[in-house]
């Protein structure tokens, strides 16, 4: 059996409602704070699917939003740590009902973002200047300031100082907002449509409740690959496959998975959920009815 790692997550989880946008049947999280939160406190890393605005032509490094699998979205909702928003409808309705004060506040927030960006640029520029200041030989330092004045006079625009002031006040850097949470501060209507999860959901919930990190296991011919901690730090320990409680497991599956698990140094983990008496009972978010076993290949 697997060792059970109980992270005392429940005690340390700050109360935060993650906004999950449902767009085209996919579950996306746009806010970077939310991304950090669910990775740290709910053990879900999901997949970054957004391009980087600085470098849009590559697909090696991606950025927000992250796309949650249906299992993850459902688990978050079941744990009451997130709410689903149908983003298209939500945007339309909220933008239509916006009054002028909200609009003003939005523009104000945009402006403040741009100012903040300008401040960051200025700071870094000042730092650069400070770093290169000692490189200028001392003998040249005085004439250079003098020559600046000369240059000004040469170009004949006597209004150089005011022009720069104008540039600083007017030409703030353009900012593309990555999330629209400023635009819509209130989480108006959460979408209550049921989330369609694959039948493997109980196994996912079971493993997640025990502190494992889970990524899809298609590469290894299983449902999930299961990490004992953040995948940045660990290799996967298990190759998890879900079966029905009474499902017959083909012999070839056992040999394939067992052999492959051994070859990539992972345990082949099988899990199934015991059917409950109630017919339409929702699967339990802690997966307490799930039984799992691990199979290892032994050289006889």
């Amino acid at each position, binding site marked *: 059996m697997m060792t059970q790692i109980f992270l005392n997550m429940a005690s340390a989880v700050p109360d935060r409602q993650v906004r999950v946008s449902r767009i085209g049947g996919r579950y996306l999280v746009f806010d970077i704070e939310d991304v950090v939160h669910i990775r740290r406190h709910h053990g879900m890393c999901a997949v970054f699917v957004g391009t980087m605005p600085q470098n849009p032509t590559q697909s090696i490094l991606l950025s927000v939003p992250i796309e949650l699998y249906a299992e993850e979205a459902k688990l978050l909702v079941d744990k009451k740590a997130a709410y689903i928003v149908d983003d298209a409808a939500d945007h339309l309705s909220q933008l239509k009902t916006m009054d002028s004060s909200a609009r003003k506040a939005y523009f104000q927030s945009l402006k403040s973002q741009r100012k903040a960006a300008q401040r960051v640029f200025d700071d870094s520029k000042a730092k650069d200047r400070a770093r290169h200041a000692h490189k200028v030989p001392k003998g040249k330092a005085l004439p250079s300031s003098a020559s600046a004045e000369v240059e000004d006079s040469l170009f004949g625009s006597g209004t150089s100082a005011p022009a720069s002031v104008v540039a600083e006040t007017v030409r703030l850097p353009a900012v593309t907002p990555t999330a629209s949470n400023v635009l819509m501060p209130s989480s108006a209507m959460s979408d209550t449509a049921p989330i369609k999860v694959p039948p493997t959901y109980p196994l996912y919930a079971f493993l997640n409740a025990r502190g494992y990190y889970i990524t899809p296991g298609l*590469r*290894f*011919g*299983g449902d999930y690959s299961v990490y004992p901690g953040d995948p940045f730090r660990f290799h996967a320990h298990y190759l998890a496959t879900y079966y029905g409680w009474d499902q017959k497991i083909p012999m*070839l599956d056992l*040999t*394939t998975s067992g052999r*492959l698990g051994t070859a990539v140094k992972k345990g082949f983990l099988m899990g199934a959920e015991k059917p409950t008496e109630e017919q339409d009972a929702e699967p339990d978010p802690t997966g307490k009815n799930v039984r799992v076993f691990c199979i290892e290949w032994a050289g006889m």
Partner: protein
Amino acid sequence: MLQCTLGECPILTTTTPRVPLHQIYALPVPIRTFPLPTFYPNNPISLLHLAYAWLRQVVSPPAAEPSVHTGAWDPDTRSVHINDPKSIRALWEQGFFGKGSLSRSEPNWLKRELGRRAGQAGHVSEARTESRREERRNAKWKRAKAELEAIEQQRLEEASLEEARLEEAKLVEARLAELQAAEARVRATPHPAPGEATPPRTPPMEPRPPVGPAELLALPNSLASLAMKHILVSVERTYKPPVGPAELLALPNSSASPLVAAASEASASTTPVPVEHLDGVKAVPSSLANGIVSPPASVASANGSARSTSETREGQPLKRRKSVRFSPQVESTTFQHHDPPSPRHSAGGSPSRTTSVLVDEARDTAVVAPSPPIIFQGEAPTPVPEAAVPVGELANKEHFQLAPEEAFFLVFAVGTLSVVDPVMLAPIPTDKLLDLFCAHSYYPPREISSPSRSLQPQDPFLVNYAVYHHFRSLGWVPRHGIKFGVDWILYQRGPVFDHSEFGIMVMPSFSDKRWELVEHEKPKKSWSWLMGANRVLAHVLKSMVLVYVDIPPPSVFEEAMRHNGGIAEALKKYTIREVMVRRFSANRNR
């Protein structure tokens, strides 16, 4: 049962010249043919030759052989058992049918066993595989050992460097002390004359920011940490010692804990190592109040480190930083019955574990007398001292197993096998045999006698047999591929000649329109299954072939079975398509 004495055992008569493999395995199926020579009308001598050959075969027909072998159906293992050694050899050598029940494929248990008892590994494939694995294990262990030694070497070098730096730091310290003393002397003279002997180059010692390396080294905490580092390095491994009583109690062998506590107390009272360092620090004149005398905190830390080192030397099982351990010996994975359950797998906490690996290894090899069969570091494999076992007569405990598809091929297509009922010992006719095999291709086996039960075209046996027959008749040697997670693996000539190139997965396909009206089981194969199976095959350098079998609808099948001559006609209704699958990754396959 085959009785074989040691004297006439084939393995020991190695002086006989070896027959080349292609002669032993010349025939593709267990049939021998005696063709008449070709007759050329323009060459009258060929007629003579023909007549001679014919007459010779009429007068003295070729020696009768057991051309029809007998096997018994075994419902428990779902295979056909063959016990006659001649039949076994014939079926194996002529077409690579079946497998030995105690062997990987070729039935050579007896050969292996005799070889083992005589203390030599025979030329059997299992032994070769075992030795190859042994070699690989040895190589891996040697590599790991070399890496470990390199790390050890590096550590020693760094320790010596550290010592040199410490020496340098002491020198610098001493020089600083001299300088300070000189300055103090200079200050003691109240009003020096302008031309008098103040040291001209020494600047006045004011509190300056410590910029140079010497000053940095002379700072209090860095010195203390240096000393600490030095101590730790001298023990050559840094372990985190269990210091608190709770941790000590939590140790696995808590009976040793009083000893540990005593040791720690003793070390606290004596502290042999850091005394000289403390002395060294205290020897600095106290006038250097500007931050060279080590504060009490650093003394305490030095003490702490000393305790830790002495405890490390005491050598109770410590919690290591990494739990990777290299056993000093490479152990074989084959265990005999008389082997102890775990040979010398002590807890790894023997007191000398902190000493270097080489010493450990030497002692281990010296001490352990009753060694299990271990090949150690290229030593010659010592013969197993098992001469006491009576070698004289040895019954062959192995039988030969034919899979249902192989048996049916031999019965139906080639006609060289008759399968008998295990109870009645009467041969089973071909159509009954087909029913039997089809019924047993389900689990649990279906009833044969029930009237509702008749052959269905989608019976797994029929589908598998169609594939088997297809590849056999094209000259391939198909064998069961369960150990690679596929239905069949294909050899071009046979397992003794080459590795198999292809793994075959049988995919029943209900492509005929008339199947929509008939209820049938839908084939369910998932993507994850495909990825897994493909990856397993890629590991063993085989290609995956999906063989789609278009199954005829029941009406067509029944028609062929009833009116057109039975299974031979019905099998013609199956069509087979092969699709080779290969994983393509844009990054890798450039």
